[in-house]
């Protein structure tokens, strides 16, 4: 501890802490509100507009969700797609980034192809037709293969590989290693921070798979949690968007309450949120290392 703080500095420190605490609380508050609402009984939320401290904490919403097979199954689907998808994406991305970081013929051409996709996308209908004609519709691969390589990630990872000295690989060649051995034994182990960072990027993207699942998957049992989640949340407010006559027509089926929507959002957010702290340290390091070397 340094002792010679002036009063002003101390005051500034206190102010800083108070200010940051307030900002932090502001960030946490919506989460708390979601938690509180998800534990409120349906009867209480029906008469109150804003519940911060439920009279009684009930688990109705959670038991509804975990009894609805659809939601639980969709969680497993998403978890599976996330794990397989991120590993697959990492593998493809690094396998493409590595050769592009070495002196190979046509390197500029391939790089150009990658950069081209930064500017021009195919659009949804051609993409759909490709997925359809490759018979991927209604398979989980439709969620994994299209967009498996993110060109931005590819470029950054290539920068990272460029930073690994050529001397290392040359030494390996002298020892009789082939390209695949160099890649798996030397390059990949050295790139753990970068791989962790991009693994997290890919995992979050996979976890949030929504539009692709909606467009490519017809069988509701294969939908990801985001599709189901949106359905649950929208169902609880769908009447807003309908005209009077339509409301009259579908009034018989009662939508799940706000509490269920909140509970569903929490359940769908927590797993991927829980990943962050574990990958945080790699995360910062990995992205930075990749970006600094020119």
């Amino acid at each position: 501890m340094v002792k010679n703080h002036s009063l002003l500095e101390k005051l500034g420190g206190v102010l800083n802490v108070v200010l940051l605490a307030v900002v932090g609380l502001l960030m946490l508050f919506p989460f708390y509100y979601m938690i509180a609402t998800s534990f409120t009984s349906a009867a209480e939320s029906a008469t109150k507009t804003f519940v911060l401290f439920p009279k009684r904490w009930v688990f109705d919403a959670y038991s509804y969700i975990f009894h609805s097979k659809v939601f639980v199954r969709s969680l497993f689907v998403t978890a599976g797609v996330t794990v397989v998808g991120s590993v697959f994406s990492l593998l493809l991305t690094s396998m493409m980034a590595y050769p592009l970081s070495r002196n190979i013929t046509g390197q500029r051409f391939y790089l150009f192809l990658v950069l081209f996709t930064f500017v021009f996308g195919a659009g949804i209908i051609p993409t759909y037709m490709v997925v359809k004609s490759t018979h991927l519709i209604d398979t989980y691969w439709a969620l994994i293969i299209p967009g498996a390589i993110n060109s931005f990630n590819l470029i950054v990872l290539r920068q990272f590989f460029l930073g690994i000295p050529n001397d290392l690989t040359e030494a390996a060649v002298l020892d009789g290693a082939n390209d695949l051995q160099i890649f798996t034994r030397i390059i990949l182990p050295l790139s753990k921070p970068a791989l962790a960072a991009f693994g997290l990027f890919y995992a979050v993207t996979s976890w949030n798979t929504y539009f692709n699942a909606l467009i490519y998957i017809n069988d509701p049992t294969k939908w990801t949690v985001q599709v189901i989640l949106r359905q649950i949340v929208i169902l609880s407010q769908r009447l807003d968007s309908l005209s009077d006559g339509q409301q009259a027509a579908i009034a018989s089926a009662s939508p799940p309450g706000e509490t269920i929507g909140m509970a569903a959002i929490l359940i769908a957010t927590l797993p991927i949120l829980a990943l962050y702290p574990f990958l945080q340290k790699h995360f910062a390091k990995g992205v930075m290392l990749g970006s600094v070397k020119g």
Partner: protein
Amino acid sequence: MRNKLVSSLLIVALSSSLLAACSSKGNEGSESPSTADNASNAKDQKVSIDWFDGTWEDPVPGPSSEAVTKINEKFNVDFKPQYIPFDTYEEKLAVKMASGDIPDVIGMEEVDANYMKWAQQGAFLPLDEFLKQYESTKAVPDYAWDSLKVDGKVYGIPTYFSPKGGKKPVIRKDWLDKLHLKMPTNYEELKQVIIAFTKNDPDGNGKNDTIGLGLAKGIYYDPSFGAYYGNATWYHKNGSGQLIPGAIADGNKEKITFLADLQKQGVLQADWAVTAYKDIFKAFNAGKVGVWYEQPGGSGNNGIQFDVLKQNAPNAEVVPIPPFKAPDGSQGLTINGSWYRMYMISAKLKDQPEKVKRILEMIDYFHKPVGFDQRNPQNEYFDWLYGGEGKGYKMENGAAQPIAENRSNVAPSAYITDGGWFMKDEDLFAFPKMAKTKEEQSFQQSLADMLHTQKFYVNPTGRIISPMLMEKSGELQEYITTETTKMIFGERPLSDWDKMVQEYMDKGGKDVIDEVNKSLEANKIQGEWK
């Protein structure tokens, strides 16, 4: 399953660089093209039907379930349904249609610009000649068919219901009685009632905590008391004899003047302009609101909950407010839409009349009306539609309640919409019988009585398809809502009314009015009372 996995893996291996290059033959099971059904036609006339539709069912009905088996057996078909939640359905449908992957049957919620475009491009089969043959379609009135016509031909089969539903203004009669007031018959009287409701402690708890008139963000439920005052009703005519939307007509001006007056006197809830309409329902259920809205049959969690209201205000008596007599002598409510959800058939089936017939028979079968007093296990048809008592639904106080978690698995009506909404005025009177509490029963009875005796104005724009109206009406209505909200708060003077109307015209309102009137004239349609 395993085969699929293996072949999928193969694809992955093949498609390392260019996905489009690969076409695998080992993967036939995953999705069948929509036209591959001719082969099966031969044996027993069994036809396979690709059925693509949106749904509000939760969980979403799957492609293989007990209900699908039931439908297959009943109609001797191979029913291949695909359902997408309606809130995202539009996007997926658009992608499917654009890529030429058109299913045999396509469902939509309502007529939109896409419907018109696809019909004009020849994606759907014109159905006029078929539709005269079925009971359920004969029951659909002309003005409903009008709304589905593109270039004079009908392409969609609507799920029709009697159009008297929808939210209607209601009032706390016990408050009227307590303050010795009578039912208001015009805005002036209503103003006095609302002032009294707000200031004279109608619930007698000694606190100033009541809301006379429920008003929500965006003037969500339009406080109109008849066709003359309706925002979206094309009732009034302008100087050159054209019909114009209610939002810029005299009726709305009177309504806004009334609201601005209440605002000036401080009677409206202070934060109404940012209050969600759902919160007003909560306040109503808490017994704090005097005038609000509800519909025949009730609306569950998104409406008045009479059991909750009874706990909070044991003496509450809710009745509808009859429409006011308008300055031009008219008196009556508006009919807007009279159907919800429709089916189209792919034009690819034009050489397969047998298949088209089978599809139409199926839709007709599902659209047979069942009176509310017939909705019980003894009615075989209803029991089949709803998946059987104890499986798809259960009886509670004489009313069939769907069992939510089973329904989409066992009930055929979760797949193909039934015409199970009320079809005739008489069915309005079944609602009181189904009511759960005595108070709700008496409310439903008084609402049915009122709707049964009222005249209804058929909104003429519901009978034509105007692309301009579909494109612009939301934006224009929002503009009027914003400006009139300002007027109520006094931020914009009421004397600016004509100027606002002019702005509305300049923002595209004039084009809309011109197009609508041209189309009305071409189709010989006028506004009429029924």
